[in-house]
């Protein structure tokens, strides 16, 4: 099938929109948290339940966005290479072996509020939602 020029242009525009519409997900902690930088593995380990501590030994409480939020799916795709189904399989394994429960979930709008009051908490939000109540964590490769 031959694609007409207008159709091609429309598709290009759509794909560009899709790209620019992709949110940039950033990892955030409370402004009072001592944590400033983490490696990708360290972030993943906290969110996948492999550890409940930051590298400095202090307690880490991961906070998830509610299921179905695109920021959540992007975070796990970027950091853990896991789709929503793979993430569910991962947590099913931990739940049904009595090893723990997935992070507490809340809507994106509540996360900053929760983080602001909990220095041990760590979450992820759209970069555009950053404000002084939370601090973006620098991610080393």
């Amino acid at each position: 099938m031959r694609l007409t020029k207008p159709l091609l242009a429309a598709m290009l525009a759509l794909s560009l929109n899709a790209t620019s519409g992709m949110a940039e997900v950033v990892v955030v902690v409370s402004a009072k948290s001592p944590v400033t930088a983490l490696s990708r593995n360290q972030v993943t380990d906290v969110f996948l339940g492999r550890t409940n501590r930051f590298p400095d030994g202090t307690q880490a409480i991961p906070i998830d966005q509610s299921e179905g939020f695109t920021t959540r799916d992007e975070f796990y795709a970027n950091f853990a290479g896991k789709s929503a189904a793979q993430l569910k399989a991962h947590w099913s394994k931990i739940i049904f072996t009595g090893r723990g429960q997935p992070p507490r979930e809340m809507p994106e709008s509540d996360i900053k509020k929760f983080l602001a009051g909990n220095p041990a908490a760590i979450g992820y939000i759209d970069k555009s939602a950053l404000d002084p109540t939370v601090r973006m964590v620098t991610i080393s490769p």
Partner: protein
Amino acid sequence: MTQASNKTRVANGCLEEVAAELAKVKNGEPALKGLLENEPQKVSAKNKNGKYLYVNENLARDYKLPGAGIIAGIAVALTAFFASNVRADDSSGPAYSLHGFGTLGVTHSSEDKADYVGTFFQPNGAGHWRSWVASTDSKLGVQLDARFSDKLSGVIQVASQYDWDSSYTPQIEWANLAYRITPDFTLRAGRFVTSTFLISENRLVGYTYPWIRPPEEVYFTLPPTNKDGVDALYRFSAGDAVDTIQLSYGRANKKIPGNGQAVANHYLDVHNTWEHGATTVRLGYTSMDIDFHHPVLDGLFDGLVQFGNAVPGPAGQQALALGNGRRAVNAPYSIVTIGMSHDPGDWLLMAEWARTRASAFVSDTTAWYITGAYRIGKFTPYATVADSKPDKLPVPSIPTAGLPLPAAAAAAALNGGLAATFNAFAFAQHSVSAGLRWDFHKDVDLKLQYQRLRTDPGSAGRLANVQPGFQAGRAVNVFSLTVDFVF
């Protein structure tokens, strides 16, 4: 093929008694009442309004195990928790949660003189018994987690699958209390499943792994499903990796088809798991002393002793030595395991290797598998190569030369029984599988799998319910389709 027919009886006897027991269970109200009152296996369960857990008296009475008191205690503790409806410290998550999992599936096998089974304990399966069965993989489980405080938590999991007595009678799979001494150091007591292999602990939850079922060549080398005892788990960071050391000790007790019973005493597990990003490496050692009783096997060894007492000379001495020395009573059994998985997202590689050291009439075995999978959106095609190779024990026998006729006939019969037993417990099987997982819906997957397996001459591999006329060494084609779900 008399050896094969003897194995049939070893694996699958006393059907009338099983039927009688089944009828007993079925006479009660279905599901809950049957579970609470007729359950011969010790059960605790939540009542209809979910306010408390019922503890079957048999739970405490039947169990002559050291862990029984602990398990009953856990059930009572959870009962009290739900009866009072007290919410524990709610600082990081709910006080309790209820989850479930299940699999519905069908399996077909091309071999009509033996059955393909989903667990070591299933009395029959696809092939001879029925061409297509739902019993190999279908299962259902529910789990209750309770958080009493930041440090103390409890878990009870009840699961139903096709088992030794041809029933789906629910069993307590997990029932333990965990105490977190520090965030990295946890002690548990009660009933739990040990992580001998990479997915031993979650082997009932099909949703968590790529295949229809873990490769039996490796996973059947450790039949006991759970243990009653204590364990300690210590986790620490090693650079950018997380390392977990687990040590557990206890006892396991499992009924086997044909009114047999396997008890694992001094059941020890030591494991080290190293996780770095997408890579997991696990090293493990498991050991136990097994008492394996089955009417057919006990009959054979009793027969050898009787023969030895009645017949003088070297034949009698040999029969006595075998009858007393080759029973599986306090028989040491151990496994060394190495497992790895690499799961960066788009693809998956898993491999495990196990070496068993057995005794009595069971041959040592080397078993391994390699699985590769590639994810294309919601589809995950996968392939597995698996192998189980025994160092086959020489089959002992009573010398028959020079025996008077009646004694010679008895010796020949006993020798036949010995050969059948030693052959049945040398598991030689090789298989290649290909399958497809489709995550077609939230929390639900559908899987298709084709497995082509071959046993060595003289062995039925991991097939069960072996019939006269079974030809070892022929290729067996196994087709399976399952739907897995979690909730």
